[in-house]
């Protein structure tokens, strides 16, 4: 398996956890990469010899030098193509709904674990589950899914992005660039969202609060 994370401490943590549940029968081959370039190298190499069965991918890693792979997401997508049989576990600090939604949608990993949810035990369980019976999601992800399914509100991709960026403090005037829409289109969507989330005072803050409540942030 390949573990990709730029914090060596975290890799150590993974290793310790995995090794602590290792049974005698099992053999673990662990490779470690801390940047996209390294990961790519390992992946390519593994193609030739023994393709990886499992990848631990952190979203936040230094991008590739050629700029094609900018984050763990891209890397995971690439890995999917290259190693279709491999199981991918995404581990990330990001707990925003938007991110989770995107990761699930674009990568559909076998495991999605929010780091702040994890204890050693949970990681072990997750690991075992993913091996036998994917998928496994950590509790935050489960909560997100729960809210998403039980809500009547539908928010499309672009709107999700808008909500996410707003919550990051991006000013409305800059949203247009990020979302790839005209400013008036962005304003229109904001209005829609406010209606959708029953924002009575028309304030962005209230919108964000409501969106957070409903699990969209």
């Amino acid at each position, binding site marked *: 398996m390949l573990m990709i*994370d*730029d*914090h*060596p*401490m*975290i*890799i*150590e*943590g*993974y290793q*310790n*956890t995995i*090794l*602590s549940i290792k049974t005698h029968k099992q053999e673990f081959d662990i490779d470690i990469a801390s940047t996209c370039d390294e990961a790519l190298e390992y992946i390519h190499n593994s193609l030739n010899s023994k393709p990886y069965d499992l990848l631990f991918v952190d979203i*936040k890693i230094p991008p590739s030098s050629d700029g094609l792979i900018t984050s763990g997401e891209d890397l995971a997508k690439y890995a999917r193509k290259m190693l279709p049989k491999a199981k991918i576990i995404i581990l990330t*600090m990001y707990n925003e709904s938007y991110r989770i939604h995107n990761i699930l949608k674009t990568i559909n990993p076998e495991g999605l674990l929010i*780091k*702040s949810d*994890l*204890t*050693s*035990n949970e*990681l072990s369980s997750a690991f075992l589950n993913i091996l036998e019976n994917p998928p496994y999601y950590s509790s935050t992800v489960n909560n997100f899914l729960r809210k998403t399914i039980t809500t009547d509100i539908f928010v499309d991709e672009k709107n999700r992005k808008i909500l996410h960026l707003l919550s990051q*403090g991006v000013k409305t005037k800059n949203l247009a660039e990020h979302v790839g829409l005209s400013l008036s289109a962005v304003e229109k969507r904001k209005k829609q969202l406010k209606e959708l989330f029953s924002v009575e005072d028309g304030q962005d803050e209230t919108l964000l609060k409501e969106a957070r409540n409903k699990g969209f942030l």
Partner: protein
Amino acid sequence: MVKRIFFFFIVLRFTFSGIAQDRKLSEVDSISYLIEKADDKSISTIERLTFAESAKRLSERIKNDTLISKALRYIAVNQYSLKNYNLFKKAGKDLLEHSIRIKDSFYIAKANVYLGQFYTMASESDSAYFYYYNAEKVYRSIKNDLELAKTLLKIAVVQKNEKDFIGSEVSTIEAISLLESSEQIESSYKNEFLAPLYNNLGIIYNELGDYTEAISYHEKALEIRKKFEDRDLRKEEESQNNIAVVYKNAKEYDKALEYFDQILIDKNLKLDDPSFYALVIDNYAHTKFLLNNTENIPKLYYDALKICDSINDDYRAIELSIHLSEYYKRINQLDSAKYYAYRAKNLASKTYNDDYLKALFHLTKIEEDSLAVRYYQEYITLNDSLINNERAIRNKFARIRYETKEIEQRNERITQERLYLLILSIVLILSIFLIYMTISQRAKNKELRLNQLQQEANEEIYNLMLTQQDKIEEGRAQEKKRISEDLHDGILGRLFGTRLSLDSLNEKTDVDTVKNRGVYIEELKAIEQEIRKISHDLNSDIVSGSGFFDMIKTLVENQTKVYNLKYELKKNDDIDWESIPNKTKINFYRIIQESLQNIYKHADAKLVKINFELKNDFILLEISDDGNGFEINKVKKGIGLKNIASRVEDLGGDLDINSMRGKGTTILVLIPN
């Protein structure tokens, strides 16, 4: 009697009635009624006069100018009829004043005619002529042909009386042509006035010796008079007399006698008009005398003389006396001749005119040589003076025409001059006004433009400050983001890793594990330190320096480079630039800017020191240079310093300028915080 009482009550009622606005119209009617009565020939002249006077009082009270004019006119007319000539004159003067004031041409002319008539009666021909001439001018200007003709007739008579025969001829002919050619006047009216005009012409031509013309005109007059609806026998007889006299002068005595006989058919003449009767008898008798027909002669004269004595007709008496004297001379009764001759002279001496001349002349023929000569001399002297008088009067008439013309021309010129002066002064005032407006407008524009420039400069600075503000905020935001990322990625990640590892090692207790745990615990310590560092970063002033001060620094740097100056820029770090209002900061900026400019322009300095100090609750800005310095009292008027002063005042602060020639200048600005 009843009529009188009735009339009295009417007058009483109108005199004492009050004047109310709503009754004004009926008052006008009442006054009009009074005026009608004033012209009513069926009632006595005194009654007419009283009506006229009431009308005047009432129309004065209601201030109706037209009615006042009418009333005054009838007062004049009736006074004339009553022969109250002084009151007539007064009425005429009143009417003249009033009509001049209300600018009523018709009544101005009328009043002048009345005054002319008065002076004719008073035998002051020059005054009479003056007033008639005024009337003539007015009637000409208002193109009233009838009244003009009537006035010309009156003028012609005055001229004739003063022996200005040519003048009289001119006036008469003009009057005649006016009447004949005018379409305004009815022919019945025309004839009424043509008759006396022809008569006048006849008299003139008689005097000028053109007997044929004289007779022709008198005949014309007689013809017209005979055709009148209301024939005036007297007037016809006058014409006949005039014709007879012409014939007499033309020595056609028989023809003359024919006309006299015609007249004497009228048996009532002696009683109706004794004066005229006497005249006719005198002429008749004299004609006969000239024919050498002395039948009835002295008796006729005596009859006539008796009549003259009874009616005090001196003029006729003189003529008769002379004729009697002639008669007695012929029959050689010299004593009687002399008696009557002297009687004539004595009578004539009352007036010293033509009659006296005649008397004198006659005496010369009767008296002895020595006396005769004396009388001749007297005759000649008197004749000369009379001729001179005539000439003088004629000149006076001419001068009146000329002078009034001259006065008119002068008035015209003065009015024109006044008009020019008025126009000139208006133009002058207007142009001064325009110039003033232009100047003040330009000044205002200048001020506005300067203000605009000020505004623009202020705006620039304000924008600079805002941009600076933005930059600061951006910087802050960036910093925050960096810290956030630091925390998130760095710290959280490490903590997570450490926690996970510790968690996995939790169960185990072997030596290796213990050692490992130790390692991770050390790791925790390292993480603590990193957190502390980040916390410390947060505390320190994120953006180095305060934005405003940076701006000042940039300004000073740039300007001193351009001006080739060295600078020292200091500030008190305790100054909280954020809390200082933008207005103050802008003004500080501008003050420093202008001071630097001043220093460059006038001071010829090498070093400028700028210092921001904090003194209690005041910010002290000190700008000093090592240049030439200046006389404070002389130079305070400079625009740069004025601006600085006004800015400081605007901020509610104090300005202090210290300078000494050769030692440099220091500007101190104290602004309350």
